[in-house]
């Protein structure tokens, strides 16, 4: 059908926005089923951020000792501080072994045991027998698991003849009057041309938005585009107050040092040379879950026991592992430490600080990868034609705190699950729906505004203001007055982001324009994070509020009576609604909330 501004339209059975681990896994399912599918990515697929994942992918293969998915499930629920939905968690943990083996069959170069099986290393929060002792569950390829996985998935998609649109940036979601999703508008970065990708089903796999913080392990391209697009189209964002601060980012640089270092036996020391984690987590010690370790580190630094001239970092010691283990299992880490911290970990400890790493929240979905929103009294009403998987989605598997290795598992299981759901949906809905008359207009208006803005705001300056505000007001420890002030401040920054100006007017690979568009997405994420964090009056997982700590009667500052629920932030109204946590697994008994100790 005609569309007034005559943006060209291409039609596909399905489109996948994002070619990281989750997008590639979903695409593979769709291509293999013979559907006509287009995968859009801002970067060549193997440059997606999944490539940076180091430590491993979690699955209870039991190659190193007894293990089963039920234990994995318990660890994930406990790690999530009971905010995770137990049906989704059961689904992921149960499917994980098959997902990993499938990846091995695709050619993933996993490390091996003597008997030829996949090598697995210990990781934070993963245990045997419901918290009894650490278990080796993280399947890895040295400390380059994400690289090996992303390349393998890309290679398998080459095999399956998946069609890629590389360096195409999706701009906005297209919904019709019923709210059904009909595709996206996108811009070819090389030419600046816009296009409508119309589809029977649209899968978002756009990854995280860790770039809202000044200190982040995330790549530059992790700008929350999927979240921005969803929020602008009226889809609420779930649990945005929950951001994981990884304990070991290189101090000053932000580059990640995998938890696998501690899995292999590395330990954290404070400025006095004390292995302080023994005090905070007597059983799991340095392998307690990430929120616990980050909080302990921040406490040590705050109380004057940091290391270094300014006592502002913690030391990660691994020289006792010996050069052989370091070179074999952690070669990439050694490379990073030498390049970004100027230390050779074979001899010296690495200076580290908790660093923003992962967004637990995102676009609300169920475990089938279908996007669900409250409608007509149903908190989980499916949005026809819309799917999300990977870090952009919130199923919610990770709740208030994700366990290490569980994101890569999520990419595989949820990517495939979303793919399967799409296949089923298209079988039942084989026709294209009509595009609304104004399809694409919002994107064109945004582009025109950016093009014509004069005396506007500098993209870098506004971005810096956003990152500093988030860092100062919404970090590892959160204070009520800082959060209230943070909400005002971040909205001021958001207002500035309405008036971005770029000097570069070229049509060809205009990176200034791309960065401005990315900032518009980041800012939605930042606002939703700050507002949700101010709103949630408890401490849970990664959301640590100083005013809700150790209150008598509340375990770890958690308030299950009032806050065992998901937040849903709406851009339009800037209001927060809630929906219940699903405490009912698919087949096993529920794990009731209890105190969390490691």
């Amino acid at each position: 059908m005609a569309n007034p501004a005559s943006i060209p339209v291409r039609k596909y059975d399905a489109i996948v926005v994002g070619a990281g681990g989750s997008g590639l896994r979903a695409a593979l399912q769709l291509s293999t089923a013979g559907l006509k599918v287009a995968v859009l990515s801002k970067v060549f697929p193997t440059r997606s951020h999944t490539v940076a994942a180091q430590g491993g992918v979690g699955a209870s293969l039991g190659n190193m000792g007894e293990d089963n998915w039920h234990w994995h499930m318990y660890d994930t629920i406990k790690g999530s501080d009971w905010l995770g939905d137990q049906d989704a968690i059961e689904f992921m943990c149960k499917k994980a072994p098959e997902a990993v083996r499938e990846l091995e069959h695709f050619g993933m170069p996993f490390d091996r045991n003597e008997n030829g099986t996949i090598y697995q290393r210990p990781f934070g929060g993963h245990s045997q027998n419901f918290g009894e002792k650490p278990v080796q569950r993280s399947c890895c390829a040295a400390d380059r698991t994400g690289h090996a996985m992303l390349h393998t998935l890309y290679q398998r998609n080459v095999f399956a003849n998946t069609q890629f649109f590389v360096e195409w940036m999706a701009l906005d979601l297209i919904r019709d009057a019923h709210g059904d999703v009909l595709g996206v508008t996108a811009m070819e970065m090389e030419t600046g041309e816009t296009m409508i990708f119309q589809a029977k089903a649209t899968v978002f796999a756009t990854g995280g938005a860790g770039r809202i913080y000044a200190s982040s392990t995330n790549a530059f391209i992790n700008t929350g585009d999927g979240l921005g697009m969803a929020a602008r189209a009226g889809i609420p964002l779930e649990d945005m107050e929950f951001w994981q601060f990884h304990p070991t980012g290189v101090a000053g640089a932000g580059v990640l040092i995998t938890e696998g270092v501690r899995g292999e036996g590395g330990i954290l020391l404070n400025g006095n040379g004390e292995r302080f984690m023994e005090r905070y987590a007597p059983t799991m010690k340095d392998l307690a879950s990430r929120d616990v370790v980050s909080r302990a580190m921040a406490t040590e630094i705050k109380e004057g026991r940091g290391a270094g001239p300014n006592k502002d970092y913690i030391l990660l010691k691994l020289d006792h592992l010996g050069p052989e283990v370091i070179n074999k299992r952690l070669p990439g880490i050694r490379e990073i430490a030498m390049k970004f911290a100027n230390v050779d970990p074979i001899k010296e400890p690495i200076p580290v600080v908790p660093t923003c790493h992962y967004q637990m929240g995102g676009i609300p979905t169920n475990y089938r990868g279908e996007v669900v929103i409250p409608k007509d009294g149903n908190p989980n009403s499916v949005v026809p034609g819309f799917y999300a998987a990977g870090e952009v989605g919130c199923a919610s598997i990770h709740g208030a705190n994700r366990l290490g290795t569980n994101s890569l598992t999520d990419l595989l299981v949820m990517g495939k699950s979303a793919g399967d759901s799409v296949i089923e949906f298209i079988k039942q809905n084989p026709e294209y729906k009509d595009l609304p008359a104004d399809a694409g207009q919002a994107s064109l208006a945004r582009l025109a505004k950016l093009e014509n803005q004069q005396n506007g705001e500098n993209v870098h300056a506004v971005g810096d203001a956003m990152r500093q505000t988030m860092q100062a007001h919404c970090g590892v420890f959160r204070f009520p007055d800082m959060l209230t002030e943070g909400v005002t401040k971040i909205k001021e920054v958001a207002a500035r982001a309405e008036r971005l100006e770029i000097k570069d007017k070229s049509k060809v690979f205009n990176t200034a324009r791309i960065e401005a568009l990315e900032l518009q997405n980041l800012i939605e994420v930042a606002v939703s994070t700050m507002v949700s964090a101010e709103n949630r009056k408890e401490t849970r997982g990664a959301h640590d509020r100083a005013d809700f700590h150790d209150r008598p009667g509340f375990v770890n500052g958690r308030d299950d009576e009032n806050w065992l629920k998901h937040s849903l932030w709406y851009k339009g109204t800037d209001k927060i609604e809630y929906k219940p946590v699903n405490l009912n697994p698919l087949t096993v008994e529920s794990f009731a909330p209890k105190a969390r100790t490691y």
Partner: protein
Amino acid sequence: MKFNILRYDPDQDQKPYFKEYDIALEPSDRMLLDALIRIKSVDDTLALRRSCREGVCGSDAMNINGKNGLACVTKISDLKEPVVLKPLPGLPIIRDLIVDMTQFFKQYHSIKPFVINHDTPPETERLQSPTDRLELDGLYECILCACCSTACPSFWWNPDKFVGPAGLLAAYRFIADTRDQATNERLDNLEDPYRLFRCHTIMNCVDVCPKGLNPSLAIGKIKEMMVKRGV
């Protein structure tokens, strides 16, 4: 700090030209990529690709003072001034430091970069001994940055016919994998005066690889297998 950067925007420039920048860096600017971002904050028209900023995504390969490398892992303190920056040589320039990698990826795709195994997969993983797995080290870590292929004279002259060091390294990665059953097909695919044999062991590829990989060695191994197969 002084920089001399090759600029070209086909939208307005007749041909590429060098632009000089003199920019005050902050103490937190450690790597060349930090400096480029600093430059971009005052001149947003400078175009380059970047993502991971830690040497794993392969986006920001460029020619740095005459040698190919990744901006994000090149220490500013190691660079002579003025720092001369050019796009990777031998590939068409799209704009500024951004080149058209189509040909490079075409060659990568031409070697069938996926494990080929016709057996029905077992219920569990396919077994592989640690020794067999070790064969893949030094091969699978390639980040497809193209530093090597665009430093290789043979690739400059025949980018459409010579697979190039990155593609050949990938070819050997699959040949060396005990799970792959297509060694003969793969060798057939390379048995050609150009695809493999244009490599004259000039070793530029080894010299520039930011991941410390050795495509030349892998190429040598493929050649050896060809010879063995011949007799």
